[in-house]
């Protein structure tokens, strides 16, 4: 009797075995418990697209699409080449505006509002417990608010516009636990680069990463977004941080009804494919050297490298907290004679805030220039394109060869603090 009772309890425990965040999100959608490897047809809450919406619409039409399957799904933000750099880009934007009108898409943000990922968050689309896909690899960013979000291709976005659905595989999960207090000149960017150097660019391939630990609890939402934004750079399908009061307060501040979402948390007894624990107090300011995010070195090893251009901003480090940190370093200083400084706020809201706090005055008096919110120099299509032999230190997420428009130039990735100190010295430096 006692034995059969134990057996029944075991069976029950098996059926209710602890789940990771990803397993829980997908189980909720499937209406039953699912395990990694299961393929499901999912109706995402939102599908994000940007300047690529015109090309996606062309594929949508080839698919035989006429009207969008669910008009509440699409969110379109023009950000990649804004303002248009040439007639072709302008015509592309024109096509997007036309399709927005024709289809009656409500969630459209024209050039100038900001980088799609920042706008998506500021406009209240990134709701804890929701599932979002986007035809941009940095769609992973919203995981900092407890969203399951991941990048897809253009054709797949067209497929969702036409059918409302996409196939997704339940990923295995990986836990990265970050504990301790970081040094005063070390930011979440340095910590992320440390992780990239340790596990390499494919270290989390196809996995769902859950970032946790006392360090993650302590830092601001903006700093957490660096982890989820760059989760894709280490191969992850998505990045997740358990939403807490900081997230709920932010959502309340931007006017999101707290009854409009339901946060999802992993179970304490969930099983992970891998767990990595890192004590952040030992991490020094780091830089990712050309041409890979995992080619990580200490700033102190790179102090002889002359820098032609510094970019502070992008969807990785273009929030108000980043500009405050950079302004603190640059206040009352001048940038080096042979170095250019480009400031790229992630959104019009960040832009206004930085302006009102007087940060732009600090950057301009130091010799920098302020760019409009958008993707700008990050994809090498316009604004801040590099020349051969030039070196850029950027707070962005990618330093692939040719990324900023020139395949004979070098890109180093760093924190806003290191980028600002570098601009002053004209060589790679930190404070």
């Amino acid at each position, binding site marked *: 009797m006692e034995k059969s009772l134990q057996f029944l309890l075991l069976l029950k425990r098996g059926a209710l075995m602890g789940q990771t965040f990803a397993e829980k999100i997908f189980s909720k959608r499937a209406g039953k418990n699912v395990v990694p490897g299961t393929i499901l047809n999912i109706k995402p809450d939102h599908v994000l697209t940007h300047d690529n919406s015109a090309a996606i619409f062309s594929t949508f039409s080839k698919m035989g699409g006429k009207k969008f399957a669910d008009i509440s799904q699409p969110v379109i933000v023009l950000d990649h080449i804004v303002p248009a750099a040439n007639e072709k880009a302008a015509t592309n934007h024109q096509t997007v505006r036309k399709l927005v009108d024709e289809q009656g898409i409500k969630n459209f943000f024209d050039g100038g509002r900001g980088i799609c990922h920042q706008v998506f968050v500021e406009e209240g689309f990134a709701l804890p417990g929701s599932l979002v896909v986007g035809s941009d*690899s940095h769609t992973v960013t919203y995981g900092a608010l407890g969203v399951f979000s991941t990048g*897809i291709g253009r054709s797949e976005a067209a497929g969702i516009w036409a059918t409302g659905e996409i196939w997704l595989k339940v990923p295995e999960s990986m836990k990265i636990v970050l504990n301790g207090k970081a040094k005063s000149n070390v930011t979440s960017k340095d910590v992320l680069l440390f992780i990239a150097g340790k596990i390499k660019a*494919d270290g989390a391939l196809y996995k769902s990463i859950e970032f946790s630990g006392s360090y993650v609890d302590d830092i601001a939402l903006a700093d957490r977004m660096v982890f989820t934004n760059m989760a894709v750079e280490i191969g992850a399908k998505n990045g997740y941080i358990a939403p807490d009061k900081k997230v709920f307060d932010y959502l309340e501040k931007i006017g999101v009804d707290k009854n409009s979402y339901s946060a999802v948390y992993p179970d304490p007894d969930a099983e992970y494919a891998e767990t990595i624990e890192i004590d952040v107090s030992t991490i020094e300011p780091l830089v990712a050297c050309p041409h890979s995010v995992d080619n990580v070195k200490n700033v102190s090893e790179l102090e002889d490298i002359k820098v032609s251009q510094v970019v502070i901003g992008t969807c990785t480090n273009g929030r108000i907290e980043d500009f405050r940190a950079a302004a603190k370093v640059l206040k009352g200083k001048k940038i080096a004679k042979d170095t250019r400084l480009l400031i790229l706020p992630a959104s019009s809201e960040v832009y206004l805030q930085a302006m009102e706090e007087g940060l732009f005055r600090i950057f301009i008096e130091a010799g920098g220039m302020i760019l409009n919110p958008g993707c700008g120099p990050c994809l090498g299509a316009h604004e801040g394109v590099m020349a051969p032999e030039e070196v850029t230190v950027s707070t962005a997420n990618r330093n692939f060869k040719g990324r900023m428009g020139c395949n004979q130039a070098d890109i180093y990735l760093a924190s806003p603090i290191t980028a600002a100190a570098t601009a002053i010295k004209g060589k790679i430096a930190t404070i």
Partner: protein
Amino acid sequence: MTVIKGKVFVYGDDINTDVIFPGKYTYTVTEPKEIAMHAMEDEDPDFVKQVAPGDIIIAGKNFGCGSSREQAAFCFKYLGMGAIIAESYSRIYFRNCINAGLPSLEIKGLVNKVKKGDVIEIDTEKGTVLLPDGSKVSFPPLPPEVDQIMQKGGLTNYIKSKLES
């Protein structure tokens, strides 16, 4: 046709989408023929001069990492390439290959068994690759949910037939 025969191009680990199809072209180069002409531009400028329909790329880990840009998969399709074989793929890139109807196989250890210009034969029905030394390696079939997209030649045709039915 179930057999893909072609000469191979061999590349290393972490070949990213920026070197396959540079970001600066994403909104200026839009026609299939043009897109094809920029394939592998920042990794191997000679690639497009040497490639022929049916040819196969063999690469290391994390092939196609980086941007979600679909052109980085479609450029090979537009060149008429036979397949890509890699140790592993970035997940968006793998999906883009499926959506382009471009066979993309995950097989470990081939990079060191072949050299540029070798001719290999892939039998997609049997799930085998015939190497120049006569040996064969096998690979598992795609999950049925994914294979049905490949069977239609890519996602556009797949959705089209779904909407029509």
